[in-house]
């Protein structure tokens, strides 16, 4: 794992649509059918980030694997922790996620803030502007909403955004340059 530290190339699978204006730093793996909008930021500082397939990461979203607060970046002997993100998640505009483990079919709404110690299972919805930085595992199908971060459990998980993903994968290449994927060539640049 030590050899991955310092590797700067992002590992983008074929079929993923990642705009060139997005900032991807560090060891990041992005699965197929994932869409990363311009101005999204995925920063793998303290360890690699693995993003599954079918995810939607919107503008100004920040997914960051950062160092814990009391540890300096240069200390020796710190194990880099991998941040795993599952499939069919939606990171809406302006959200910040530092959670190390995110399951499937979650929706993190605009300007939500997830701390380092939270673990999202599946089907969770973190409402707009909700800050969740408790040290816990959020049970499945939980909805966190409101200014006081009230919680309730819903009976069904949120639907995967297949329609939106299909639409974006067709339209975004018309207006933005894409980052190169691993297998196959990059999408042709249109004038």
């Amino acid at each position, binding site marked *: 794992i030590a050899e991955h530290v310092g590797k700067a190339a992002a590992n983008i699978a074929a079929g993923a649509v990642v705009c060139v204006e997005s900032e991807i730093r560090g060891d990041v793996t992005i699965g197929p059918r994932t869409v990363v909008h311009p101005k999204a930021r995925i920063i793998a500082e303290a360890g690699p980030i693995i993003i599954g397939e079918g995810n939607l990461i919107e503008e100004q979203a920040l997914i960051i694997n950062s160092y814990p607060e009391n540890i300096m970046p240069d200390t020796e002997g710190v194990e880099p922790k991998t941040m795993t993100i599952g499939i069919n998640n939606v990171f809406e505009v302006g959200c910040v996620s530092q959670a190390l483990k995110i399951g499937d079919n979650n929706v993190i709404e605009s300007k939500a803030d997830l701390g380092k110690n939270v673990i999202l299972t599946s089907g969770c*919805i973190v*409402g707009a502007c909700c800050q969740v930085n408790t040290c816990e595992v959020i049970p499945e199908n939980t*909805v966190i*909403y409101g200014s006081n971060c009230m919680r*309730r*459990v*819903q*009976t*069904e998980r*949120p639907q995967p955004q297949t329609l939106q993903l299909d639409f974006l994968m067709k339209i975004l290449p018309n207006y933005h340059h894409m980052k190169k994927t691993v297998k196959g060539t990059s999408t042709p640049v249109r004038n």
Partner: protein
Amino acid sequence: MASLLQPDRVLYLVHGEKKIRSPLSTLYFCRYCSELRSLECVSHEVDSHYCPSCLENMPSAEAKLKKNRCANCFDCPCCMHTLSTRATNIPAPLPDDPSKTTMKKAYYLACGFCRWTSRDVGMADKSVASGGWQEPDNPHTQRINKLIEYYQQLAQREKLERDRKKLARRRPYMPLAFSQHTIHVVEKYGLGTRLQRQRPGAPITSLAGLSLKEGEDQKEINIEPAQALDEVEPLPEDCYTRPINLPEVTSLRQRLLQPDFQPAGASQLHPKHKHLLIKRSLRCRKCEHNLSKPEFNPTSIKFKIQLVAVSYIPEVRIMSIPNLRFQKECQVLLTLTNPVENITHVTLVGCEEGDPEDINSTAKVMVPTKELVLAGKDAAADYDELAEPQDFQDDPDVVAFRKSNKIGFFIKVVPQREEDGDVTVSFKIRHDFRNLAAPIRPSEEGDAPTEAIWLTHHVELSLGPIIA
């Protein structure tokens, strides 16, 4: 410095039943009485009912029938947001040919804020977009209706008895319905008495719907008294040991918004119809003129009649405050804005010793003694570049600047108390007011049609804490 513009820093005193001090932006001005009015010294009347989400107007009688709820819109029982109707395609067998399936639309209610759906409480999807949703019936409705009828009849009977007693003593020409005491008795089980309080002599027309009409056969309504039970349902055995499923427990607010059922579990929270809002009109209690009358259309925010104080009374605002020191003279910059189109003359007078209105001031204030002249508000001033600036001889010690209908002037403040808390000063502002509402009498001598009257208002300013 935006905090200096906050409305509750400058308070105007309203003379009414209660002496109320509030910012000018919340006050109304009755131009027939030529006095300031606050919300507490006007009578509020309901103008119209409307639904806040579909903006549908509803006549008052219909609103009363539907218990002030909209027929089409629902509230989320979880977060009280408005529910929206969503559609899904479900495969359904064709009525002619059961083996083939076609996509049919099914509708369900969903909340955009907390993601509650009607499927969470087990309500089946409906095939029509609106009108398919029913609120669950209250099992006690019949008993409640019977009780209401019985008590209305009782009140009517009591009213007749009192009138009979009064009739024996009263002169014959006084009409039966106008007795003051009986109003309260009939209204005991009907609308509140507040409606009647403001109009001591007006006929009571709202009672007609509640009480039985005169001459109708009064049916004897008998109700069974409520039975007290000896045995109460026992608590479940695992009441103390069962772990609580917290997401399933309803909050007090969710529970009390459904007073019929007050469910303890979240799986029994059904959506309720949305509550209607009202548009209200305000009326001066002394002269019975309307001070504020909104438009009938729910989508319109304009007013038919809008007699707000800021469009008649010059407004004082704080512009800048220096460091206030105990018993040292400081100069505070205030602005005075003229809301009317003609020139206004304003005189400021400090409060005298022992003024009964001056209860809050903690500092001595020296106001400019000269009369301040304010130019009229010219709506076209921004566009008219060739306008000559009017020449007012301003004393530079008193007037700091002048800009169209606004002037800035200095007052001197000497804080008298060294304690914590804001330095408060008060003074009286006297200005001339031309009443354009009064009917123009045919002038016999060719006088100016509008005469100015002088109005005095008591103003209190909160200047902030003393900085040592």
